[in-house]
């Protein structure tokens, strides 16, 4: 059923991404692609993977932005995947019921067995989180590694999405945003967690922690350029040329 469940059982699972800590290494991107190519969600399409005009399905992509903060500007690496919104139009527009939001934990999923690949859900997502799987002819999206986070054979630490367990800087947190005492809820409160495009009204569950205010000055003052010695004769000019080569 593509109607949004009224009550999601008190749970709203999502990701909290720390933009202060992320170094833009794309480990989450490759871990996501790797895990979801072999897990219950896989395989994920890869067309021309090792040549030009590569087209593949990815659930997670890292952008790099420059923020002009009045100083010298700063680079912010920005991983983006499905935000598992509370009011996801990608679900309500689905004509087949393939797209749905789970009542028990709020995860937005696609039943690829009944998806007709009309792409309307990707048009309805303001964040560009859904992609077409060209091999299967169906739409795909981040599942929050739903088969991993409930797998009791795994240790508790591993019962998190692949992007979270792989992140080398600990920039990705996973948890229940409805539980006010969860780690993600606490971090959102303490660090002023931000919601992407609040004006669209989709109410994304997953949030971002903004970069911290800088405590040190931007940058060392530029070093003085060492002027080239005024070469007196041809030999010294030649030495200067050789040494500056």
């Amino acid at each position: 059923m593509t109607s949004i469940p009224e009550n999601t059982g008190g749970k709203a699972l999502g990701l909290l991404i720390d933009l202060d800590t992320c170094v833009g290494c794309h480990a989450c991107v490759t871990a996501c692609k790797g895990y979801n190519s072999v897990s219950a969600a896989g395989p994920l399409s890869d067309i021309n993977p090792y040549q030009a005009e590569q087209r593949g399905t990815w659930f997670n992509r890292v952008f790099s932005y420059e923020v002009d903060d009045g100083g010298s500007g700063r680079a912010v690496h920005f991983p983006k995947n499905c935000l598992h919104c509370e009011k996801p139009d990608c679900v309500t527009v689905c004509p087949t019921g393939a797209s749905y939001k789970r009542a028990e934990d709020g995860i937005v999923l696609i039943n690829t067995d009944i998806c007709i690949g009309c792409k309307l859900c990707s048009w309805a997502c303001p964040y560009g989180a859904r992609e077409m799987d060209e091999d299967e002819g169906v739409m795909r999206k981040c599942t929050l590694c739903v088969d991993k986070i409930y797998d009791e054979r795994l240790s508790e630490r591993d019962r998190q999405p692949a992007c979270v367990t792989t992140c080398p800087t600990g920039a990705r947190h996973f948890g229940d945003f409805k539980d006010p005492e969860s780690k993600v809820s606490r971090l959102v409160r303490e660090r002023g967690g931000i919601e992407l495009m609040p004006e669209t009204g989709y109410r994304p569950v997953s949030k971002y922690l903004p970069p911290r205010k800088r405590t040190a000055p931007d940058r060392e003052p530029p070093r003085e350029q060492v002027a080239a010695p005024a070469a007196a004769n041809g030999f010294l000019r030649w030495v200067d040329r050789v040494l500056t080569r």
Partner: protein
Amino acid sequence: MHPALSVIVFTTASGAGCGLLLLSGLLAMAGVFADDPTFGAVAVAIGVALLGGGLMSSAAHLGRPERMFRALTQWRSSWLSREGVVALATFVPAGVLFLACVFGWGPGVVAISGAVLAVLAAATTLCTAMIYASLKPIRQWRSRLVLPGYLILALMTGSLLLLTLARAFGHRSPGYEAVALAAIVGALVVKLLYWKHIDTAAPTTDLGTATGLGQFGRVRLLDPPHTEENFVMREMGYQIARRHAYKLRQIAVVTAFAAPVLLTLVGGVVPAALAVIAAGFGVLVERWLFFAEATHTSVIYYGRPG
């Protein structure tokens, strides 16, 4: 938005078909088809063929067309599903009206099936328009002019088809010309207002709110996530140069509106048929622009205006 040929053909053909079926239903109610059942049967058959052909074209847009009938299940929430249900339902009164004309089932059946047909044909076009008008990430389509635009263009192409058939079957009422001319003028006004709206309306979202980093200062893209274009860029990131858009708008105005007006005023079956062809081509161009000029908020992340 990527202008997919299958969707452009679908909306143009099913729009013309629904316009013709709507007007046919009204004529059936007015008793015209009871007097000339051949006219009625041909009009309904052409309308059904256009609607059915359009729906088949839309199936070409699907990744899994063999599953298309699953699209009839979610009419509670999805305008696309509603459109499928209502479009298929339209075939029922259309079939009854067609058979009533062929087998002479009496004016009562003709009038009642005509009334139901008129309502469902209009509802089908309404659902088509609402698929687009309900998509929040595409600011151009959130305009209140999208729904009237689809309805009046369906009525326009349908009325030109009907005018051709009326002249072919020797119906001389000036009402056919009047409806066609009124629909053309109305459609032109709606489209001009829509184009003015999308040219002047400011984007509602920028990279600052898209990333939440606007609170620190101006945000610009340093590196995209991939070196190759991905699905989002190909599907949502279609770009058309403004000067090309203006030229195509001029072509649409000439072929969809100006030429059909002149050809309608000339009189005769052949000019009316030419008006249908011109309007069909013009609406295809208009529909191509409807997609190509629409922008999606997801491309903002790639450093483009949404």
